[in-house]
């Protein structure tokens, strides 16, 4: 026995020694990459706050995730283009209009890109903008309430990918079509692409006070695919840059047919010039149906309006609005550095990356240094616009963000890495692998004039073995790197919801002082609000029954309702009377075919319920609100259709002899 112990001890010692000696010979795996003081750099102690909010698109879940950086903790999921049974968004009568479109109720979208509002090119902490890729839409989310306040449909678009990038002072956000399509729903052969298909770039004006969005004008552009874009800033303010692919104008097997040319285009748009033409009345009005949905914090209700026309400028008729710059092989990212002078084109199939100079582009235009035209639009000579090329940076460059020290960070999907390089010298400074297959990346303030070059976050497309497996469907992974030194250092993996497509990060100090705590009950203008228990009532209007209900710790008023009949449409208008931070109440009724509703303090929300059978049906508060949460419930009696059970409602009223408080 003793021997056995000795032997195993010996083995253990040997193993430790061997481990120490041999570990340096092993290939560097993921476990070895993150090391040193990484843990302390991402540890945010209990009760401490993160330094940055990370506003992360949920991609195909149609939502936005709100995370803390550096901890990677998830704080909130904001439903935008998707239903949320958690809050009742898209299910409650008040929020259903948010998802209205010219096609009717569309309860899902593919939310790709985030743009945070800026003033003078810097984050101002007011709004989050996001695009719906599939049924073209843009959305505005409030940084006070972290709720979706507005959704605007984009007509004449085949898919709103190149969006919602914004100008320096949030004057405009853009919505460029990914797919060119025939305008006005024309029924034409697909093979008539070159003749009939057009691109459409919408400039959406953002009201500087309310944030309300309206389509100011649309540019009608040549038919190819508009991928991504960025506004100019500083010297290039007044311009917008869009990456374009499929200048081959292929309409089938784009995988092959849209990769024929050596170069596609970056499209430079002088939007101030376009504004001028619009002011001069040169835009033409075209009929187009699109929904404009606004949520009011006063009424706690959304309204949806169908608009019916847009103002259009055909760029072929106004030759000084748009210029093409040749860019190698299907450019994807098109990113402008903090100075506004350099525009990085990322040809996703190219082995180098061109960096264009805004100054040179202006000189080339002044000198008409063109190599020709495309459909009458001047094509600037590649060399005339070029600042220089980043040689052999990696495989499959996609997107570039910047720090405040003149460095750029580019994601490479094919070679799965982030490459740091100097914007002026174009010299490659460092590279780190990502696990696995990075798409977008984010430096806090990285697309603005004021980056905070402390971190870069990778949003990866492939997860495989990075976490405990959960069957075939895996979470998608974000990775946090410290970029404060010369070398990038991997600090943390954190899981995300949906597809973390693009994200921005903003200093927490710009957001936290303005965050809404409660809605004031006296300011509630919902027509169905019961602003006090004495205002509660039940009204019948034909087969509609309206219950004006209140919720406060720990009862619902009324909690006994009789006189509802099978086949009625019952509307529970629930007002949360609480005026206390973080005391929402929920409401659910058995058999409802929609969801619960979650009602914030001072707010009114409405759940529609159609009873299908007789009986007594319970309803209750779903949000654990208090020690008597389980008691917060009630009954609604459902009588047969056509019955004469009188309409009755009460709370705390006992009608038998043996019940009630004190009995």
């Amino acid at each position: 026995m003793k021997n056995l112990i000795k032997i195993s001890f010996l083995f253990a010692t040997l193993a430790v020694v061997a481990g120490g000696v041999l570990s340096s010979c092993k290939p560097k795996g993921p476990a070895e990459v993150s090391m040193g003081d990484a843990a302390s750099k991402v540890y945010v102690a209990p009760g401490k706050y993160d330094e940055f909010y990370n506003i992360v698109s949920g991609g195909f879940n149609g939502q936005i995730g709100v995370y803390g950086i550096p901890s990677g903790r998830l704080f909130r999921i904001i439903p935008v283009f998707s239903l949320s049974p958690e809050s009742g968004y898209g299910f409650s009568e008040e929020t259903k209009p948010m998802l209205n479109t010219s096609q009717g109720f569309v309860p899902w979208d593919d939310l790709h890109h985030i743009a945070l509002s800026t003033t003078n090119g810097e984050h101002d902490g007011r709004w989050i903008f996001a695009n719906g890729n599939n049924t073209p839409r843009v959305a505005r989310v409030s940084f006070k309430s972290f709720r979706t306040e507005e959704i605007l449909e984009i007509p004449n678009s085949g898919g709103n990918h190149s969006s919602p990038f914004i100008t320096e002072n949030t004057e405009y956000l853009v919505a460029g079509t990914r797919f060119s399509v025939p305008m006005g729903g024309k029924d034409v052969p697909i093979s008539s692409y070159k003749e009939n298909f057009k691109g459409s770039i919408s400039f959406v004006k953002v009201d500087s006070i309310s944030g309300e969005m309206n389509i100011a004008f649309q540019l009608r552009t040549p038919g190819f695919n508009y991928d991504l874009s960025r506004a100019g800033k500083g010297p290039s303010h007044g311009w917008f840059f869009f990456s374009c692919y499929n200048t081959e104008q292929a309409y089938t097997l784009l995988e092959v047919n849209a990769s024929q040319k050596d170069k596609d285009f970056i499209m430079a748009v002088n939007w101030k010039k376009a504004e001028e033409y619009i002011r001069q009345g040169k835009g033409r009005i075209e009929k187009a149906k699109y929904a404009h949905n606004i949520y009011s914090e006063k009424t706690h209700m959304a309204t949806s309006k169908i608009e019916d026309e847009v103002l259009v400028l055909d760029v072929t008729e106004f030759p000084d609005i748009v210029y093409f710059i040749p860019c190698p092989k299907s450019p994807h990212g098109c990113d402008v550095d903090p100075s506004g002078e350099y525009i990085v084109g990322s040809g996703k199939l190219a082995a180098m990356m061109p960096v264009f100079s805004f100054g040179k582009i202006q000189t080339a235009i002044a000198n008409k240094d063109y190599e020709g035209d495309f459909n009458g639009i001047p094509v600037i000579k590649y060399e005339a616009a070029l600042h220089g090329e980043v040689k052999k940076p990696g495989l499959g460059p996609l997107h570039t963000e910047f720090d405040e020290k003149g460095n750029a960070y580019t994601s490479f999907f094919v070679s799965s890495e982030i490459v740091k390089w100097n914007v002026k010298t174009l010299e490659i400074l460092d590279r780190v692998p990502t696990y696995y297959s990075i798409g977008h990346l984010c430096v806090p303030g990285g697309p603005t004039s004021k980056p905070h070059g402390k971190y870069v976050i990778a949003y990866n497309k492939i997860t495989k073995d990075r976490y405990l497996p959960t069957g075939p469907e895996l979470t998608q992974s974000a990775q946090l790197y410290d970029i404060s030194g010369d070398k990038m250092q991997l600090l943390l993996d954190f899981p995300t919801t949906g597809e973390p497509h693009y994200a921005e990060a903003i200093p927490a100090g710009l957001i936290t002082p303005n965050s809404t705590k409660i809605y004031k009950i006296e300011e509630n203008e919902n027509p169905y609000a019961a602003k006090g228990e004495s205002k509660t009532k039940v009204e019948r209007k034909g087969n509609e029954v309206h219950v004006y209900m209140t919720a406060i710790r720990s009862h619902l008023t009324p909690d006994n309702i009789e006189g509802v009949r099978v086949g009625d449409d019952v509307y529970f208008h629930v007002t949360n009377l609480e005026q206390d931070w973080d005391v929402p109440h929920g409401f659910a009724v058995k058999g409802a075919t929609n969801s619960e509703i979650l009602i914030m303090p001072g707010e009114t929300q409405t759940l529609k319920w159609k009873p299908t059978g007789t009986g007594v049906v319970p309803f209750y508060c779903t949000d654990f609100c208090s020690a008597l949460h389980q008691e917060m419930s009630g009954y609604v009696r459902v009588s047969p259709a056509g019955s004469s059970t009188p309409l009755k409602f009460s709370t705390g009223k006992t009608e038998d002899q043996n019940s009630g408080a004190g009995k």
Partner: protein
Amino acid sequence: MKRLIYVPLLLLLACGQQQSANQEAGATLESTGGGQSTVQDETSEPDVVRVAVNSPLHTTLVAALKGAEYVDALSNAGPFTVFAPTNEAFDKLPAGTVENLLKPENKDALRNILEYHVYVGVIKEEYVQDGMTLNQVNLDNVTLNKKDGKITVNGAKVLGVVKASNGVVYVIDAVLLPPDKK
């Protein structure tokens, strides 16, 4: 001495460079780290503790709640019905009673008395019925009476009723003393 001067200078320099993005708009960097009573919130309606704290009539009660480490519990979601004796009510107790109860060794006795003033649940004025009993947090009962619209609890007069975010406060003119344990 020279060294002493250099060190703080260096520290100052380092701090200047390390200014974090969080400080941009002078935002709070962290939670207060205490219980719910320490949460910074000027927006919400006051809870039962803040109702007492804001009342000049209740300084003794507040001191007792603090002594019994009871303020966080009563700042919680509740809901609570609190019977809040005024300073005068405490003054009616035999001399030295309050001072004695505030001694650390008497914390359990103090808690027992305070818990006899708290019911978990909101009993609004209109729900009070004559002869109604409430089982208090310390597990003893109080009896409410209602005569000609005037409410008493164990004979103590209700001087006023104040709604709070997490319940209701009945201001009373006597301290409620729990029955002796057998």
